[in-house]
């Protein structure tokens, strides 16, 4: 399927989802839906670096919260339209991704993971000591009542933007997968030395991955202050963002754009249901239990169950040429 066709189908699916949410006519659907969609963007963004190139990023909260705090800072100066805030959040976190890449991409495996975790701690310390954005006290953001130009509540408007970001991130991930860039990413994941020897510019590709991944995480974080209306460093940099974001692609499968989508919808929805029916503290327990369960029964994620079937079918098709 061509990329343009895929984007068209994804847009139609997103429109149907949004129409269904409006049809349900329940405010909570948008509150919960926003979180699930936010995790689709985060999980897809994480997978661009972690799944495609094999570099595990534990510093999700840093990229996400920097996007959110860029909104807080801009809101204090000028309060621009949401699209500008999202773009600025993406640029800020993309630049952080570039810096992180330059500083850490010569590290491999666990060492890279620890370096990204340290990045989150450094960023949180900086924000905690930056009084302009509220410092350790946190910052209040006044959420407008209604969306500009559209007959929607602001929460519905935020949800719409998160849906657009989900489409954008999924389309980007799939386009990468089916491109020369995706082949290059896969070689880095499989064997970096052999990749270089095959002509793959590994450092440049890793920087592209960190920038893209960071930018989408920043964009996912940018609308957050309007969603929560109060943001402090401990909630913005919460470890749960990293845990959820890593767990979702692992549960869904990291080899394809579909994995993070399945993982985010499954885990995000379960967490939202558990939050309202049992307890909010239970949501992280669910993540832990599911992660352990999937590591045992589906080490390649949910799409891993179907991959052998797909691969055999593909080979049969190729063999019949």
């Amino acid at each position: 399927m061509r990329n343009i066709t895929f984007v068209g189908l994804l847009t139609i699916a997103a429109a149907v989802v949004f129409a269904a949410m409006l049809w349900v006519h329940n405010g909570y659907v948008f509150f919960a839906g926003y979180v699930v969609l936010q995790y689709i963007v985060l999980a897809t963004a994480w997978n661009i670096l972690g799944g495609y190139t094999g570099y595990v990023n534990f510093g999700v909260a840093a990229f996400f919260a920097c996007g959110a705090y860029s909104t807080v800072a801009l809101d204090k100066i000028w309060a621009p339209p949401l699209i500008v805030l999202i773009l600025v959040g993406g640029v800020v976190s993309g630049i952080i991704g570039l810096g992180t890449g330059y500083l850490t991409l010569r590290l491999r495996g666990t060492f890279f993971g620890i370096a990204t975790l340290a990045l989150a701690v450094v960023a949180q310390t900086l924000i905690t000591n930056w009084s302009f954005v509220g410092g350790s006290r946190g910052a209040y953001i006044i959420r407008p009542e209604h969306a500009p130009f559209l007959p929607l509540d602001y929460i519905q408007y935020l949800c719409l933007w998160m849906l657009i970001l989900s489409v954008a991130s999924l389309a980007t991930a799939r386009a990468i997968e089916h491109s020369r860039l995706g082949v290059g990413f896969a070689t880095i994941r499989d064997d970096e030395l052999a990749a270089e020897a095959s002509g793959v510019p590994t450092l440049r590709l890793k920087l592209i991955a960190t920038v893209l991944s960071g930018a989408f995480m920043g964009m996912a974080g940018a609308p957050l202050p309007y969603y929560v209306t109060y943001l402090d460093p401990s909630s913005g940099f919460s470890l749960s963002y990293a845990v959820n974001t890593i767990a979702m692609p692992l549960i869904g499968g990291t080899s394809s754009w579909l994995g993070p989508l399945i993982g985010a919808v499954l885990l995000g929805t379960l967490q939202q249901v558990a939050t309202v029916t049992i307890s909010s503290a239970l949501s992280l327990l669910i993540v832990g239990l599911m992660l352990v369960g999937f590591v045992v029964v589906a080490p390649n994620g949910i799409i891993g169950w179907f991959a052998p079937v797909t691969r055999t079918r593909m080979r049969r098709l190729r063999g019949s040429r």
Partner: protein
Amino acid sequence: MTDAPLLEITGVGKRFGGFIALADIELAVQQGERVGLVGPNGSGKSTLVNCICGTLRNETGSVRFGGHWLDGMKAHERTRLGLARSFQLPRPFATMTLAENLRVPILYAVNVRNGHTMTDIETRCDELLRMVGLLDKAHRLPRDLTQIEMRKLELARAMASEPRLLISDEAMAGLSHGEVDDILALLLKLNEQGVTIIMIEHIMRAVLAFSQRLVVLVAGRKIADGDPQAVVRQSDVVEAYLGS
């Protein structure tokens, strides 16, 4: 007047802490030549290959290939210039099929020089797999291959980058007599197609059958360079291999 060598190594040295891995290595390889590079374990053969290919940086001296100075150049840039290597231990891209493994150098090394269509790429992959006898396994994963097939894949992937110089790093290690002959025939065929080859090997039967010139390294130093039959009779070469 002789042509400029394809590969020219002058005064290359490399240390690992206090250990001298390579000291003042001089070597020139002409276009189309078949050079055997031998030496006991730890003599610096793989370190020299790594310095030529950009995996390691030489601390002294310089490497010139096809008229380009390679010092400071990254490994992938050297591959794009036409310098390919196979690894001592095969390093296939494990999640990719054999055809996909070969597509990588075509996409990243060859297409940078001269653009190919997807059909060209498929045809080239098929040609390479047919050449090494793996066409029937084109859509299998490397884990399904035997040891010799893995070595052949390694050579085919190196050839996919359309190199002018191929460095084969112990492609015959651990293979049976017949399998060694298979790889030897393959390397000779590649040389007939115009590819200059440096073969690093421990199997002297294969080295002598293959090489037009033999270079011997011992403890990071070049101790012999010349006609293979003459080199293997040299007293210091015999001593390095058999002891005094």
